[in-house]
């Protein structure tokens, strides 16, 4: 079953069409990579999927329901997002991880925070101030913070592009492990085709705001998907 389905989705900004007639389905538990050249509309599409921006045409169905009928905060809780930069809030790592649930007056226990941090390889980081973190550690906290909301879908917007090569592979492996262990549905935007090949079973190729091709990664790239 498609957990996310876009129907004639489009967006126009100041008279310029940046996305046009996007029809895309993402099944439950699937990892889909959105690839394409710079300016193709990859990040814009991702922002439409959790309604950080408003479509000017078409809509998105989340679990079969038009997402405009859902409260935006509830939709975003269920469709988590990790951005290119971690954008952590001032304070400690634990405060960041607790942020999402606290918006619904839920307090994550120290144990739950510790468990989430362990999943992202940051055991013992709870009380660490965020300004003492490296770029890779910050991105791990951003991932744990998104997971704390127990989302059904995880949107990843170039999550490794701001990191060095070592951190990049570490985060990539971590995301793959977390997505697999939680059976998360995942949509990842990347300009790195090799990364798309390593992480996603299916790719959607965007060009000039239009979806020009979707299919299995190996078919689209003409090569076997690497483990």
């Amino acid at each position, binding site marked *: 079953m498609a957990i996310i389905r876009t129907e004639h989705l489009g967006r126009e*900004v100041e008279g310029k069409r940046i996305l046009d007639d996007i029809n895309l389905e993402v099944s439950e538990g699937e990892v889909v990579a959105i690839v394409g050249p710079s300016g193709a509309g990859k990040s814009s599409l991702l922002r439409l999927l959790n309604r950080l921006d*408003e479509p000017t045409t078409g809509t998105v169905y989340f679990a079969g329901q038009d997402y405009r009928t859902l409260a*935006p*905060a509830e939709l975003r809780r269920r469709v988590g997002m990790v951005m290119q930069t971690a954008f952590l809030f001032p304070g400690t790592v634990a405060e960041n991880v607790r*942020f999402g649930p606290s*918006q619904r007056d839920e307090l994550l226990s120290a144990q739950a925070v510790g468990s989430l941090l362990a999943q992202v390889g940051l055991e013992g980081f709870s009380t660490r101030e965020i300004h003492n973190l490296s770029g890779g550690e910050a991105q791990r906290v951003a991932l744990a913070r998104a997971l704390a909301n127990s989302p059904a879908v995880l949107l990843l917007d170039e999550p490794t592009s701001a990191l060095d090569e070592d951190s990049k592979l570490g985060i990539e492996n971590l995301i793959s492990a977390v997505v697999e262990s939680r059976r998360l549905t995942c949509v990842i935007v990347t300009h790195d085709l090799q990364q798309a090949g390593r992480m996603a079973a299916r790719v959607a190729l965007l060009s000039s705001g239009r979806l020009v091709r979707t299919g299995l990664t190996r078919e689209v790239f003409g090569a076997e998907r690497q483990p």
Partner: protein
Amino acid sequence: MLNGNLSNHLLLGLAQAGLAAVMVIAAMLLARRRQIHVERETLIALLRGLSQVIAVGFVFIVLLRGPRWTSGVILALMIVVAAATSARRAKSIPGAFQTSLCAIAVGAGLIIAIMVLSGVIEHTITALVPVGSMLIAAAMNSNALALDRFRAEVESHVGEIESALALGASPPAAVARFVQISYRASLIPPLNNLRTLGIVWIPGLMTGMLLSGSPPLYAAVYQFVVIAMMFAASGLTCLISTGLIRGHAFTAAQQLRLRGKAA
């Protein structure tokens, strides 16, 4: 309409204004020697300022003979102009004028009303309009600072705010930190006024009272009362404006509208 005595006062005032203008022009010329060119703005501001206060003087001549309710009309007009002026600092925020109008009308208006009802401000036109205008001006300046700071903070923290929204935060929760920063920043001038009152500056009202023969101690205490009222009006205005403006920074679907260069 003008009697001889008033004409003499006017001539004397104009002569004094001329001397003051000469000093302004001297300062401008000194700046010019250091290649700082502010001649045009300074001359326009001088002429504008002088013609405005003369016009206000004429208005007072008429008003002093008019009914008391006219002071309410004047203060209401001042609030509208104050709202338009401070809203210009936040042009990119939709609804900045309505927000400013509501905030200044309630913030300054409430303090003026309380002070008039309690007898701190006399309800004569000569007392109510000048003191009321000081409160409205203070509210306007603080409101402009609050809106400008809020816009700047939001536009430079788009990623952080959208991360909060993406985690299910409501718009007020997503910008709460920036509302607090803006509110604090807006209160710096009135706080400094209170702190330095009588030490660094002796404000105009007290000077006027002393010149008109009021007892110095009463003039000093009354000046404190006015500065404290200005602080209260500023605080209340900014509390309302920062509360209202955060709603205008987002769409109905809780998307950040105020994205600056990130848009």
